[in-house]
């Protein structure tokens, strides 16, 4: 039965991902005094794309068509590492946060290759910029996760969740505050949101992710869009699991799982509003300011790790 819940968690993350995008877009529209599209719009987009024809540039090799598939597959598998409703996940070992980070890296590596396989200038440009951002995001990401793991005395995400559930909310430590700040900044960079990248732009001066996927169309594009939605959801779920897991079910009963589901919805809603507010109030950074942005995240993450030794 627990295995069924763990599997349900994964499918939930994958299925609900486009909705979260839709919700963020809707809140953004409201903040900007627009009516905005329906929150179900991303599903309609995916449906439309999945029924379109797949167009491939003449120079492209197998990698071009394989990249979206690999990206989707590894992102979906990465979702199996994050506890959502209860303090366990379908797959998990000690040190699985490292595996989670590198699975996302595997998907990104293939997407960069797919972009360069298109043979136009945009793909290379997007891949080059993505390489810069992701390279500099890797260290703060792992350091931030590591500091939380050290504080919880366990290296598995489920273990960290279990430990945090046993703690008192009021006794949240400086380590967690620093790590959350660092990981929130990294999450913005990793998922390609403002101020690092703009998911809605199509202007060559500013785009990173969009430039990479410019040559994709039809079902391939649908897979990429869905995968990037899943990635956003996984990152949000990870932040929730590490820093605010309260409400998750520790025992199995219909009641506790329903409570966990509602708690999750509330927490995701808070994060979505936060993202929408940031995206509506901050301008996108120049690309060469992104290293400074991630430098701040790195400094915070290093401080968090140092504090783990000091605060014992």
């Amino acid at each position, binding site marked *: 039965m627990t295995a069924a819940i763990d599997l349900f968690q994964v499918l939930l993350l994958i299925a609900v991902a486009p909705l979260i995008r839709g919700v963020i877009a809707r809140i953004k529209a409201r903040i900007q005094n627009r009516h905005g599209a329906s929150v179900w719009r991303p599903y309609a987009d995916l449906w439309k794309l999945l029924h379109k024809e*797949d*167009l*491939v*540039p*003449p*120079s492209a*090799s*197998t*990698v*071009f068509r394989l990249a979206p*598939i*690999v990206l*989707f*597959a*590894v992102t979906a*598998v990465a979702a199996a590492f994050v506890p959502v409703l209860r303090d366990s996940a379908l*797959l*998990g*070992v*000690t*040190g699985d946060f*490292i*595996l989670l980070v*590198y*699975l996302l*890296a595997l998907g990104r*590596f293939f997407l960069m*290759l797919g972009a*360069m*396989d298109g*043979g*136009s*200038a945009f793909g*290379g440009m997007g*891949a*080059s*910029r993505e*390489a*810069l951002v*992701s*390279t*500099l995001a*890797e*260290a703060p990401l*792992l*350091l931030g996760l*590591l*500091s939380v793991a*050290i504080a919880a*005395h366990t*290296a598995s995400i489920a273990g960290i969740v279990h430990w945090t559930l046993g703690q008192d909310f009021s006794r949240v430590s400086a380590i967690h505050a620093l790590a959350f700040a660092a990981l929130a900044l990294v999450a913005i960079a990793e998922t390609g949101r403002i101020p690092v990248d703009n998911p809605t732009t199509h202007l060559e001066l500013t785009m990173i992710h969009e430039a990479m996927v410019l*040559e994709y169309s*039809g*079902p391939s594009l649908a*897979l990429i869009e869905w995968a990037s939605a899943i990635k956003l959801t996984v990152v949000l779920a990870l932040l929730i699991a590490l820093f605010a897991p309260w409400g998750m079910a520790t025992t199995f009963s219909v009641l506790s799982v329903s409570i966990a589901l509602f708690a999750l919805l509330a927490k995701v809603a808070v994060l979505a509003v936060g993202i929408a507010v940031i995206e509506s109030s901050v301008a996108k950074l120049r690309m*060469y300011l992104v290293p400074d942005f991630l430098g701040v995240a790195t400094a915070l993450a*290093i401080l968090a*790790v140092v504090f*783990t*030794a000091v605060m014992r």
Partner: protein
Amino acid sequence: MTLVASLWKKAHIIPSALLVLSLLVGAVVAALSFWGGFGLSLDLSYLAPFSFTLTVDRLSAFFLLLICVVGVATALFSTSYIERHYEGMRRNWIWILLPLFLLSMVLVVTASTAFAFLFGWELMTLFSAGLIVVDGDSEKRRHNIYVYLLMMHAGAAAVVAAFLLFLPHAEGLDFASMRASAGNLPVGVRAAMFVLAFIGFGTKAGIVPLHVWLPKAHPIAPSPVSALMSGVMLKTAIYGFVRFAFDFLGGGPSWWGYLVLAAGALSGVLGVLYAIAEHDLKRLLAYHSVENIGIIYLGLGSALVFTANHAPAWAALALMAALLHTLNHALFKSLLFLGAGAVSDGAHTLDIEELGGLLKRMRTTGTLFLIACCSIVGLPLFNGFVSEWLTFRGFLAGAALSNVSASITLPLMTGVLALIGGLAAACFAKVYGVAFLGRPRSAEAEQAHEVPIPMLIGMAVLGVACVVIGVVPGIVLRPLSAAVTGVMHGAVVPAEATSIARVLPWVAVGAVGIVLLLVAMRRVARVTATWACGMPGLDARMQYTSTSFSKPLRRVFAQVYRPDRSIEVLPADQPYFPNSVSYRSVRTTSFEKYLYRPGVDAIVSVSHRLRRLQTGNIQVYLLYMFLALVALLVFMRFA
């Protein structure tokens, strides 16, 4: 007559078949010893002036296996590669030197006396230098070989000194008595030994700043030889260092660990940064060897820190991480260098700016090269990830040490390793994207062709090994933990070390399952021209090049590169209407400029001064002799 001629043409089959066969036998013996755990010993002292004994324990068997497996792949590759690229005497020389080179490396890892070890150590340098000379000896190449030999011998001198320091304390210079005497060594002697071994083996391994020979020597050898030099020869230095620091000396104070960690961090980050700026495929790969040696040293360093802090189990885990990365690097780096050989065979250039679109023309080579790229970047389901994961686990465990400086330093190394991983991903996305994907950038790349079957088999052996270790690492982790237990004198590897082996197969099943499902579901795609913003079509020159791809990273890390740039606009008084604009950018690595150059200049100037002693006057020489004799007598009287 034609029969003789055709036999003569095929004559290389015999030595290459013998080489492959003997390497296979070696691999089987090593595998039996590595998995089965039995030892072998052979005393050849009657052949040599000093005691000359060969022994295979589990650690030796591990390195022997590495040499033989990569050797088999390289030999298979060479049978066809050498025939296609070399002829006459040069071909013969390669077939003579290649087995000798392999044999010298086997000698190094099986020797159990100092003499046998050093004998193999020196032969290894000489045979590899010989193999570089076979490829030509222009002025520039001779300079590179000279730098190589010079640094190797300087390193060897340090290794010899480290061995000789055992003399007053050990019964003999065989490994067993050196190991036994380690407990009685004075602290100062131990420290001196460690530093000498660190410098001596570090020179061979190519740690920064002792790496300057590596990007000079590796790229100019024939590709199979580059594969052996980078994939295998560097590993003998790791073997020597592990023997010395862990097996003989049994670890030491914390600063040993910090020294090795610092060398690892510096080599890792600088190696990959230098690689990003390169677009000569083989030089780029050589810099990546510096990077990966850095990762191995990060593991070795944390093992030393754990030993100093009395955490033998975690020390064993960190050492296991370092050894596994040694094996992994041997597999994927050899594959990459063989792949570079295949590229130069198929497209006749190694400048990636001239390549492009090779995957369509060299399907198997391209696929195998992609496997190697994913492995070296350390992505899951490929072997590089497993060893990097173990290294990360070691850093994480460091947080539990009671010593505060250790419990801060080790976890922070996570950031360094993550940065190295990110930079490596950027670099190999560049390499693969520019060389194998997109449109061909030159006529040569347009007409590239797949290489012959023996070369493909050689590469496939390594590619399969990379994937197998990446998906089911348990098969190597178990015997390796036994080998580490032997080196660490009984310390058992923690159970967490193998937890990754349980989950990786499931990740593989999940990911491959989804990929297969989606591949089965996808429909036929329509090939159509890319929209070129309304202009008449795209051409290959509009693609991102290697240089443009790496520009943002080079700009962010500009402090590392410090290029000397100059733009010349002619005529100078008309900046807006120039007749010609020329741009020049020269990159010299700071180490050559600021570390080696002053040293070389100092030696040269001292030598110039000393030349005055040599007057050519016989009476003056007699005076020198007389003074030397007097000094000796005085010294003997008072000493």
